[in-house]
């Protein structure tokens, strides 16, 4: 059974709902006293739409059809072209570290789709008149209105936070993996590339934060310097020894 073929509701209250979509928990919480009718369904329907169109794991997605050679570039949707243009811009900004093309030449836009979808979902909420809310897809988040307190998870203990930031009208995304253990090395050069456990990036929205968290994480220890050089972004990188490196403006977000 493919985990992305159905969704599961794991929390549903009047103000906060969580569902599993795109293989991850997606949560929307709204603080406004008046919540537009069916707004949660509209947002989750949007994520389902994105998954159906862009998942490389769905055989009928536009991405899969492109990879199977079933549709030619002139038949690609306008939205696909626009997304790929954003991906290309990110590739150039990151000196090639961000790339939606796999080494085999296949298209896998997952690295840009998640943050982009979160940002678009936030816009759906804003256009419906919602002011104080967040959208959280698998730990990448966009917050609006109120000041939200957000924990950065301990890479070795998911029940524990190692930093707390206060954000308003911003995006935050964490790239990381715990699986680059002894058996994992870069197949290109045989080197172990896993000195970094996680890289958290704060930016103007979830799209911006996510794409540069993905790009920066691919750079290894150099990623935090890349974030430092990006105007309007801050980062918090945790290495394999549990030492964090902060960009120079990060502490303005630190919650005390």
């Amino acid at each position, binding site marked *: 059974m493919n*985990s992305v073929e159905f969704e599961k509701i794991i929390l549903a209250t009047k103000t906060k709902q969580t569902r599993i979509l795109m293989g991850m928990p997606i949560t929307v919480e709204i603080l406004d006293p008046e919540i537009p009718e069916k707004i949660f369904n509209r947002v989750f329907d949007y994520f389902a739409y994105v998954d159906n169109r862009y998942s490389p794991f769905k055989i009928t997605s536009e991405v899969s059809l492109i990879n199977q050679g079933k549709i030619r570039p002139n038949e690609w949707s306008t939205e696909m072209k626009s997304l790929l243009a954003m991906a290309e811009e990110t590739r150039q900004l990151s000196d090639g570290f961000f790339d939606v093309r796999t080494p085999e030449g296949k298209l896998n836009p997952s690295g840009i789709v998640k943050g982009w979808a979160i940002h678009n979902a936030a816009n759906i909420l804003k256009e419906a008149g919602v002011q104080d809310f967040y959208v959280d897809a698998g730990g990448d988040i966009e917050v609006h209105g109120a000041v939200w307190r957000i924990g950065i998870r301990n890479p070795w203990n998911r029940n524990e936070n190692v930093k707390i930031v206060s954000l308003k009208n911003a995006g935050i995304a964490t790239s990381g993996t715990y699986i680059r253990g002894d058996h994992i090395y870069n197949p290109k050069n045989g080197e172990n590339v896993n000195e970094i456990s996680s890289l958290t990036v704060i930016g103007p929205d979830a799209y911006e934060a996510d794409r540069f968290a993905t790009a920066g994480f691919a750079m290894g220890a150099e990623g935090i310097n890349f974030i430092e050089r990006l105007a309007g972004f801050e980062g918090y990188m945790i290495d394999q020894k549990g030492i964090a490196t902060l960009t120079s403006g990060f502490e303005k977000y630190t919650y005390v």
Partner: protein
Amino acid sequence: MLTKLKKLSLSLFVIFSSIVYVAWQKSGDQTNSNSLSLNSPNANSLNSGQATNLPPSANGSTQNYRDGQYTGQPADAYYGNIQVKAIVSNGKISDVQFLDYPQDRNHSIQINQVAMPILKQEAIQSQSAQVQIVSGATDTSQAFQQSLDSALTQATLS
């Protein structure tokens, strides 16, 4: 040291996954393989108050498995698939190997070094203040758990 730490983080995952697996079995929700019960939707309660595990030190699983090598189902980590093989000896998980993992983030291109300010560093510490949301890399760890769960199901039932 680094190797040890990695192994320890893996063992923590293995133990945690076993707990989640048991809870999942007891919940009776066995028809739904997408039951990612690992992630509590209530971020408000993410406040353990414990000392930071650094490096994580946990040992000993209470569950006994049949000896052998068990390959888990590939699990969708969205950025790619994760598939693990669990090796059980003397009833304990002795190793977990990754047969597949998302590789699209591995790039060997160099970027230019420029003059940089010395960035502040700190040892990570547990924060006890309550939060409303948590940012973390959940995708691969959940897929890891899914694949490991399916491997351990074989070790238990087959």
